[in-house]
């Protein structure tokens, strides 16, 4: 399972870099969005899930039905820490995305173009 996830991380990361180095701001925005997925997948891979081979979803989710005392082994649940980190990351990623998209709209209105090269040239002229 980890190996599948690693491949997913590699592919999404590569594509997002490809998009972000492009010249259209729209592509760059999508690249940033995809990068968020890639990073989150990379973190969730660290929780070393005890994936059941039968479809028993949420069997080892970090939700307690009884006290998690010393008697219970850690391997009975997945590591909760990556999940907490990703939850924060999802929310912040969305906030950044929304701000980026509104900047996109504003840029296109003010400058009339979303081409990075043209924008940079204009900025240089302005400076």
């Amino acid at each position, binding site marked *: *399972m980890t190996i*599948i*996830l*690693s491949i997913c*991380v*590699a*592919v999404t*990361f*590569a*594509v997002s*870099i*490809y*998009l972000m*180095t492009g*010249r*259209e701001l*729209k*592509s*760059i925005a*999508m690249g940033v969005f995809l990068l968020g*997925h890639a990073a*989150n*997948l990379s973190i*969730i*891979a*660290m*929780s070393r899930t005890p994936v059941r*081979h039968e*479809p028993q*979803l949420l*069997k080892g*989710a*970090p*939700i*307690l039905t009884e*006290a*998690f005392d010393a008697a219970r082994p*850690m391997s009975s*649940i*997945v590591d909760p*820490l990556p*999940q907490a980190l990703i*939850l*924060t990351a999802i*929310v*912040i*990623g*969305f906030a950044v*995305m929304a*701000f980026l*998209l*509104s900047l*996109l*709209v*504003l840029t*296109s209105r003010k400058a009339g173009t*979303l*081409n*990075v090269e043209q924008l*940079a040239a204009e900025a240089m002229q302005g400076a």
Partner: protein
Amino acid sequence: MTTSETIWLLLCILAPAALGCATLWLPKRAIAARTLIALLGPVASFVILAQHLAAHGVSAPEAPAATPVIEWIPVLHLNLSFLADGLGGFFGLLVSGIGALIVLYARGYFGRDEAALFRFFPTLGFFTTAMMGIVLADYMLLTVLFWELTSISSFLLIGWDRDDRHAVKLAMQAFFTTGLGGMFLMGGVLMFGYATGGDGGLWRWSEVLSAGAGRIDVSDPLIVWSFILMLFGAATKSAQWPFHYWLPGAMAAPTPVSAFLHSATMVKAGVFLTGRMFPVFAALEWWSDLIIPLGAITMVAGATIALNQHDLKRIFAYTTVSQLGLLMCMYGLGSLEYHGHANIEWDITQIANHAFYKAPLFIIAGALGHYISRDITQLGGAIRKRPAMVITMLLAGYALAAGPGTISFQAKEFFLYAIYHAQESIGPWWMLLMAMAAVTAVCNVAIFVRLLTTLMGWPGGMKPAAAHGAHDEHDDHAHGHGEHEHGPWAHLIWIPGLALVLLQYVGGLAPGLWGQWFAPLESHAAEAIPTALHAFMHPTLPLYVSLACMAIGAAVGLSPLMRGAIVDMHDRIYPAMYWLAVTGGGRAFRTVQTGRFRHYIIFVLLAFLGAYVASMALDPEMLRWPAVESAFEFIPGVLLGVIICATAILMPIVQSRVVRVIILGSCGFSVVGMYLLYQAPDLALTQLMFEIISVILFVLVLRLLPDTKETDRASGRWWRFTLGTLTGVAIGWLTLVAAQSGAEPKLGEWFARHSYTGTEATDGRGGGGRNIVNVILVDFRGFDTLGEITVLSIAALGVFSLFPRRKPMPTQLEFEEQIAGGAAR
């Protein structure tokens, strides 16, 4: 001693600033009242400190008695405790005493200039407080703190003339130079505390002094470096070569500031620090090796440049540099042993000696500039116009020349003896040092002889240069304020100088009395101060040298040699550095900062790949294929993985923007599925919600954007592909290796065990929640979540402010038209 002593000394430190600021509440016209209140500050400091010293005595240097600690920031080893030992107590009295005289002088100097006095008293009080703090603080970091405050307040004082760009530049020069030294000092103090044991280390001067050499391992390179850093701080503050350029530059300040900063306070802070460090670091070989050459070069450089100046304030500024070099050199020589004891005597007298003649010289220079001129060539026969001022200046000048009858003479003898005695340790180098001291003395005598002949109007004095006109800037600041003041207040412009210079003659003519005052403060006063006569009764080499210096100095002063005004080449150091930082830095900045997003990404990724390759080379373990479980058994995982990869790959290929958004959405929903497989229901729910909003948002936004194709898609396609693939593979591999590293989730386990019920480690208290992820978010990492909410709110505010709902903001042009229309109507 009780805690109340700490509070008293804190009051003693804060009084000048507090009362200086209090003058702001008095009416601007009440000059006399404001002067009195401002005067009360340093006087209160003086009285409190004197009372403290009288009540508790001056502690022995080996067992310094600091006042009890009042905790302020114990974690940073920064608490309130004060040490009024001989050195600190003496400096405290000196600073507050001269500070009081300067308040009076400022009243005479600024005359009836209400606005200037309104601004001056609080600033001066602030500076006095900072200075008192340096000399009385027991915690080393407290000294550093006040040290920085003197940099800031002296910046305000030097750049007093806010409209004069030149003065502001010189104030910046002083600020940056001394501020840089302050940073080095802080580094030195931190390093010292760390080297002596970190949290349990030595953070107080009193501990450092009483621990002595026992706890301080002078062979430890950390100790050596902390000493060098601290010395750098002292050298910049005390204007040691080649950092002395800021001191003459600081003459842009009004004369009360120059008189205060350059006689007793700012520049003496470095000497004070050296004196503080002396008992601790003198055992280092570096001590004498570094400080003696530094001080000696400064001494000669300052004296020779001083001889070639015309502006009185510049002359005295360079003699100050010279004297500071001498004081440093004295401490440097002090570490050399002479017949088994330290080669230093009456060091506090040396420091007091300089303050007692240099402050009057500046005071009278300002007074003469006020009434006549500050250019020595314009002052021929000034005694006929202002006899009292000229006599005061000549009395102080005689002390500058170290003439017999002043304490300066004995001080000079002590210094020459120290050089003479150093021959035991440094061999023939003592002759070079003696020659350097002689050159300095010759210059000082020559300056006095010139002052004497010029001011008295005798033949041989300085004559106005033929092509005069280049020196108009020498007129003093206060000069432009109209007619001179009359009445008793006007005499304040010279009386403080006379009061100080008389102390010189007390020391010179009645050394017994001087000894009574200063011996309790001195830690190196084995023998009583001899009278000047004593030296003549028992002539030795140092006396011959002084006499020869006086003869040669008089000859040089009368001769037509070296009468021009030269530009100190060190004045170029700071402008050159400034140019390098601003212009050179600007060029480097423009080279790196292209303003193009892709270039930044490439920089970041190349740095990442470089670090990646380097770590692979360092740790070959990272290259080994980890033991992974069978990859493709679990069909849902494989399917989701295939969808994620396929949608990602399709993204750059598809052209239609709507299809692109749909693809992005399906990628996101597959990630939701992946979270479910990884037993993360919270993540799946959150991601699902945000994915839906994101897709809607994308569709809405894309509708607002022009549907342009990427015009030059083909360009740079291959390097983008290569860079993306390399980074992707690197991150993927990193993920695989990290996930399979076999590290136990220790932190995760701790969170799991404490999320509902606690253990003994937490006194049985737990988070009280069954959903561990939620407990982590709102409890264990609550601040993290607070930050997250803040980011979300800021983003929401940002979006909201970008799109005004009601009325579009007028563009600049429309706005100007509106204004113009309004004006027309």
